[in-house]
């Protein structure tokens, strides 16, 4: 299948950046296409998404979704816009994975075009081969989802590992500073000259 399969980083809205990051693709008329997206890192893993048809009509508009699939058959040929926004976020940088599937095209589908046009001469072997092909496409799809899930989990785990180290070091340093600080300040209380003047100032 032809399409776009990439991950896109989105800066949070608090930084000066464009409202939406869009990508555009020419889609011929009467063509079924599927947009699938998933936020793979950042904050609450949510993003705004909208799709515009060539005549500037919003085909899809969702706020703060974590993942979604949108299937649509194009009515007119032209440039469709797929836009994502992270404007609502204060600090979190997001990374969005998206996949635009436009169905089979010439290059990747040997025999496909012929099969559609006249479905008569398909032997059992040919139709088995076709169903294997479709099943494998599903496997590749699942693998892709699995890879994304693993990536999300792994990033959290690696971040956790780093955080544990950093905070532990900071805590340890803080303990030592506070311990010495306490003693030092306490000693300072007793170093002030007493009104009675009976204390002998013997330093240690």
């Amino acid at each position, binding site marked *: 299948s032809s399409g776009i399969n990439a991950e896109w980083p989105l800066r949070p809205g608090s930084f000066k950046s464009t409202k939406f990051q869009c990508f555009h693709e020419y889609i011929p008329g009467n063509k079924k296409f599927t947009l699938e997206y998933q936020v793979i890192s950042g904050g609450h893993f949510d993003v705004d998404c909208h799709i515009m048809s060539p005549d500037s009509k919003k085909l899809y508009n969702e706020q703060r979704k974590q993942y979604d699939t949108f299937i649509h058959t194009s009515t007119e040929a032209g440039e469709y816009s797929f836009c994502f926004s992270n404007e609502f976020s204060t600090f979190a940088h997001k990374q969005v994975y998206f996949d635009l599937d436009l169905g089979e095209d010439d290059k990747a589908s040997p025999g496909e075009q012929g099969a559609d046009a006249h479905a008569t001469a398909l032997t059992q072997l040919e139709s088995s081969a076709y169903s294997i092909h479709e099943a494998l496409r599903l496997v*590749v799809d699942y693998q892709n989802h699995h890879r994304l899930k693993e990536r999300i989990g792994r990033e959290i785990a690696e971040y956790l590992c780093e955080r544990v180290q950093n905070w532990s070091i900071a805590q340890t340093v803080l303990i030592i500073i506070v311990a010495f600080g306490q003693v030092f300040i306490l000693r300072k209380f007793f170093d002030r000259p007493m009104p009675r003047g009976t204390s002998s100032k013997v330093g240690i």
Partner: protein
Amino acid sequence: LSLSLSLFLSPSLSFSPGKYKVEVHNDKTESFVMKQGVGMHVEVKDPDKNQVLSKYYAYEGQFVFTTHTPGEHYICLSPNSTRWFSGGNRLRVHLNIDVGEHANDYKQIQAKEKLSELQLRVRQLVEQVDQITKEQNYQRIREERFRFTSESTNQRVLWWAVAQTCILLIVGYWQMRHLKGFFEAKKLV
């Protein structure tokens, strides 16, 4: 101003050169046109954030790079200067990279090796299965690294808990001894 995206690539996965084209929005004609002198800087980083490619190209061309590590590769396209699109001009970037199975041109393969439709279909299935196998192998390696990270976190939490408890005890003991000595010297005890 830049266009950055990441692609999952692997040394065992074939992919075509990145073909790109940059157009500048012409306010008068309300369309995007190619403009001489427009140049793009293409930067590609591998999953370990090492630079794999960093070159300047014209407004249209293709860039090639090799991968050594499987994972998310970061591609960044940025204009080489802001001269030719100041004042809020818009840029349009076309980018085309065929990855894995899609990098094969089956029509070409069929013509070169003189395969029938069925043979070509089987050939494609073999490529697909190959891609699936490679991805599974990648996952196996990734899972190993994930497990290593989790075990490392586990160890760190344990080690630091023990270490901090010891430090607290040592420091507490030192405090008492020090203050006792101090007060004894001050003849308050």
